[in-house]
């Protein structure tokens, strides 16, 4: 007799789980015919009652009050840290301010260029307006000539500084804060050597590092810093959304077996 279809249902009945009436009837009928399954049902019922007794026996147990005290302290410490952080402008916000400033400067410069170009393209002619009647025709002619002269001088000179500012490279350089400039300079300096500090490999499999594959490959990936928490590593919560570098050991089948975190630092 094939008992397989009934085995899990026997457990479910013994545990008081809801199963449909028809299946329950079938299982109970089977347990009457099959000695093994009948015995299993009785054993399962005894086990369920023993597990219930055990659950009741430990139901009143809870963590000691000192944990609540410690957690309250941790909460207060975190709140204090957050208050301090509020006074320190965040780097991301600084970037935002610089970006907005840069955008305003760029639009202002573009406007200046357009205005200058419109002056170059259309020399001033004598207006036939009320001003001509009040000032007199000669006076108006003199003013127009002086304006045209100035415009010609400007056209022959080097383009104004505002023109240079439209160039993206120079604009970016002007709007970058000092610390960013420094970072770019460091990046460009090929002389400086870097060193990597790595954590130990942390197993991602149940059997620990003993189950590491003999053959496989190590792949470098970038993860959110908050992923470190899952491995019990401390993180700076201010930077939880930033990326960290990690090496993942992949087996030949492509299964991730272990991970280690990499920190790049300048060589002393």
């Amino acid at each position, binding site marked *: 007799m094939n008992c397989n279809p009934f*085995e*899990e249902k026997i*457990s479910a009945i013994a*545990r008081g789980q809801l199963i449909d009436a028809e299946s329950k009837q079938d299982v109970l009928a089977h347990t009457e015919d099959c*000695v*093994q399954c009948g*015995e*299993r049902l*009785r*054993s*399962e019922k*005894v*086990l*369920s009652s*023993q*597990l219930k*007794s*055990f*659950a009741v*026996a*430990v*139901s*009143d*147990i*809870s*963590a*000691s009050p000192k*944990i*609540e005290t*410690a*957690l*309250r302290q*941790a*909460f*207060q410490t*975190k*709140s204090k840290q*957050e208050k301090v952080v509020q006074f320190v402008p965040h780097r991301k916000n600084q970037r935002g301010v610089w970006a907005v400033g840069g955008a305003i400067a760029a639009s202002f410069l573009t406007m200046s260029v357009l205005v200058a170009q419109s002056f170059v393209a259309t020399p001033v002619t004598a207006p036939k307006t009320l001003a001509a009647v009040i000032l007199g025709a000669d006076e108006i002619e003199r003013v127009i000539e002086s304006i045209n002269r100035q415009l010609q001088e400007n056209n022959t000179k080097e383009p104004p500084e505002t023109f240079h500012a439209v160039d993206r490279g120079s604009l970016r350089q002007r709007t970058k804060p000092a610390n960013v400039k420094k970072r770019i300079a460091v990046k460009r300096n090929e002389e400086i050597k870097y060193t990597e500090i790595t954590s130990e490999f942390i197993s991602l499999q*149940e059997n*620990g590092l003993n189950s590491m594959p003999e053959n496989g490959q190590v792949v470098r990936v970038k993860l959110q810093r*908050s992923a470190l*928490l*899952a491995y*019990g590593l401390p993180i700076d*919560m201010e930077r*939880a959304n930033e990326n960290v570098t990690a090496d993942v050991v992949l087996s030949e089948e492509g299964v991730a077996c272990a991970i280690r975190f990499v920190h790049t630092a300048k060589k002393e």
Partner: protein
Amino acid sequence: MSNFSSLSDRRLLRLMEAGDEEAFVALYRRRQQSVFRFALQMSGSMEIAEDVTQEVFITLLQSPQIYDESRGSLSSFLYGVARNYVLRKLKRENRLLALFEGEKEGDESFIADADPLRDLTRDETIKAVQKAILALPQNYREVVVLCDLHELSYAEVAEIVGCAVGTVRSRLHRARGLLIEKLSLKDEWSVVSGEWSVEF
């Protein structure tokens, strides 16, 4: 504090994120017992259970954003975090080995002996059940603890353990078979599985 009893876990979490200490304490008081008992039943050690409980709530305090409401209840999330901490601690401290080697009667028992007139047979049975559960392989132990002792549904356990519902069901079936053997509840019936024919 009584005002918080009617609030949902999610609401308390939001208040906690906004800096309300009492909301955090209310959330802790509501959920600490299940986290603590789970850690205790998985490890058999009061010390580990207390450490794990503290670490679970510190994690919640420091990074509440890692809880994703769309992926399940806060309770399941806390069980999941507790499970990870327990497994890490067990690996690190090799507690299970110590448990099997120790064999000091009552040393690892966490059942309170508050009532001296307690039925001795019942007490012995409970200690035997505790020992048998601790002797189960970790992936079987956790489903027994969560399904039978904490009375969670298969779906909730699958979410916590990170496997399919069918896997939870079959692991529970095998785990109960091993417990029956261990507790000698049956003489003739035996677990027919080459994989787990381990004598504890």
